[in-house]
């Protein structure tokens, strides 16, 4: 009931964002459309729209799935402290299905504008577009298998999110430990499947944009980005609810632990980022180094500042600000850092996707507008689901432990 209020308040905010986003997008489209060139590609504004839709969708779909991963990990670990924020993580998965549908639509609508390997005749030796390297990947990167994988991954994420959510809701009604026992099995199965599907979806959705290029760190890299953004999102929502007067039992101890996770996984992301960068930098093989050539100084240095800014906002800033215990226990500090981490990782996906799809043509107005539209849609569905059940799973066996949690 009362939760509906906050949901509508956030929903209004989201709607506002959406309007603003659409306005931005429209304005930019007019501006950019004028300079669109012909040729085999769609006009620049359309390519920018496709690329930004893809970027924001991959980002928000990933965050959405991370909500379920958060629940699953804490269930198999028998973690008690996180029960207080479990419903927030559950609500995140509301975006999986719409996100998946948008992803399919954008994939079919964009054609070869996003994915170079979809160019007509690129795998046909008789065609002038023939590319032997890409043709060698035809066993994996062909339309049927790719779409099947996409559908299967999203179906897995959606099914297990729904299953865990349903078990949790039934537990609210009936009580007992049976539902929790069942959710351990469900979580364990989901984590195994997610480990494979998240890694492969990172190859499919992000790495195959730079079709010639490959990196064995990429699955972890994308997962780290999603995971730390998801934690930042959960943290931000928890603080928002707390400050609006909900989650009475959520205290500095819970925030401290969430802050530690965000701090730790920001470092983890940097570790993965650096592992990928250093190996490529050190070996200096042309087919690998091209990825960083484009981002460091390529296209007249267009992405160079972003390359370093990415490291500052996603590593140096959270690392230095959240280092002390007091910072992790203060809402204002956590809010600043969580917002920075979310923006930072959105930019991280920008860095992954834009140079491969738009080369030097990317900008920020359409992209930020699209990002805000996605944020609005995500918040609408997330808060709607949040308002549909008690904010704390009242019959969870560990709820008492969470109330008395101290760090």
């Amino acid at each position, binding site marked *: 009931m009362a939760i509906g209020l906050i949901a509508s308040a956030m929903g209004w905010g989201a709607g506002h964002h959406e309007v603003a986003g659409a306005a931005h997008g429209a304005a930019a489209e007019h501006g950019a459309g004028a300079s669109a060139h012909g040729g085999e590609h769609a006009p620049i504004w359309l390519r920018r729209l496709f690329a930004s839709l893809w970027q924001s969708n991959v980002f928000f779909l990933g965050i959405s799935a991370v909500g379920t991963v958060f629940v699953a990990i804490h269930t198999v670990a028998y973690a008690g402290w996180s029960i207080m924020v479990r419903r927030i993580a559950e609500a995140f998965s509301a975006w999986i299905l719409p996100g998946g549908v948008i992803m399919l639509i954008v994939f079919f609508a964009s054609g070869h504008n996003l994915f170079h390997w979809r160019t007509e005749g690129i795998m046909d030796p008789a065609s002038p577009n023939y590319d032997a390297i890409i043709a060698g990947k035809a066993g994996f990167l062909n339309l049927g298998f790719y779409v099947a994988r996409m559908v299967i991954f999203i179906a897995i994420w959606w099914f297990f999110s729904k299953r865990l959510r349903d078990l949790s809701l039934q537990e609210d009604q009936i009580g007992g430990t049976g539902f929790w026992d069942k959710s351990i099995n469900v979580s364990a199965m989901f984590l195994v499947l997610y480990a494979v599907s998240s890694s492969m979806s990172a190859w499919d959705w992000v790495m195959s944009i730079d079709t010639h290029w490959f990196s064995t760190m990429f699955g972890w890299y994308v997962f780290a980005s999603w995971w730390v953004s998801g934690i930042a999102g959960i943290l931000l929502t928890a603080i928002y609810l707390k400050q609006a007067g909900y989650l009475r039992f959520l205290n500095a101890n819970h925030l401290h632990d969430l802050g530690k996770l965000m701090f730790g996984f920001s470092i983890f992301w940097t570790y993965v980022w650096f592992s990928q960068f250093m190996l490529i930098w*050190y070996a200096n093989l042309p087919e690998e180094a091209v990825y960083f050539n484009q981002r460091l100084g390529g296209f007249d240095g267009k992405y160079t500042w972003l390359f370093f800014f990415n490291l500052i906002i996603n590593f140096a800033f959270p690392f230095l600000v959240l280092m002390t215990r007091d910072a992790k226990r203060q809402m204002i500090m956590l809010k600043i850092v969580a917002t920075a981490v979310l923006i930072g990782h959105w930019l991280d996906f920008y860095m992954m996707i834009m140079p491969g799809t738009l080369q030097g043509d990317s900008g920020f107005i359409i992209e930020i507008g699209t990002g805000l539209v996605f944020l609005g849609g995500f918040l609408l569905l997330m808060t709607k689901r949040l308002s549909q059940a008690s904010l704390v799973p009242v019959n969870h066996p560990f709820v008492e432990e969470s109330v008395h949690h*101290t760090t």
Partner: protein
Amino acid sequence: MTKRYALGIFEDEDVLLHAIENVRAAGVKIYDVFSPYPVHGIDDALGIERSRLPIAAFFYGMCGLSFALWMQIYMLGFDWPMIIGGKPHIGLPAFIPVSFELTVLFCCHGMVITFYTISGLYPRMKVPVMDVRSTDDKFVMAIELKEDSDLGNLTQLLRANGASEVNEKEMTKE
């Protein structure tokens, strides 16, 4: 020097935590509490200030980082420049792993040494044990007895707060 202590023996950590609060509220200064395992929230209940060790750790880490960077830049950039894999003499990405390791190394050793020094711990030191049962299943609250302390009142206070027994013990410290 010999000191006398009143020892309140407790069976349960929750009872102990409440007793600590009540005893402190009654204006009695607690010397220390001994427990078989770390009890959550006992630091706050005893009013122990937070350690400043993390601040020291930060500076040890900075020392390690600076030393690592200086060492690598001086050795590979100036003292004996070598071309490795066609990279610049001072190739920062290659220095990061070593810098990280030395930061952690300095930080850990600095913290351990500082902690031992501050706490007065050294090898083969004899630790006075107030009550051996605090290493098994009992919680022991020690209160120092001064010349004018009233043991009767103290016993009553501890018993009222759930102590299963109250003993008196003399400890000699050289």
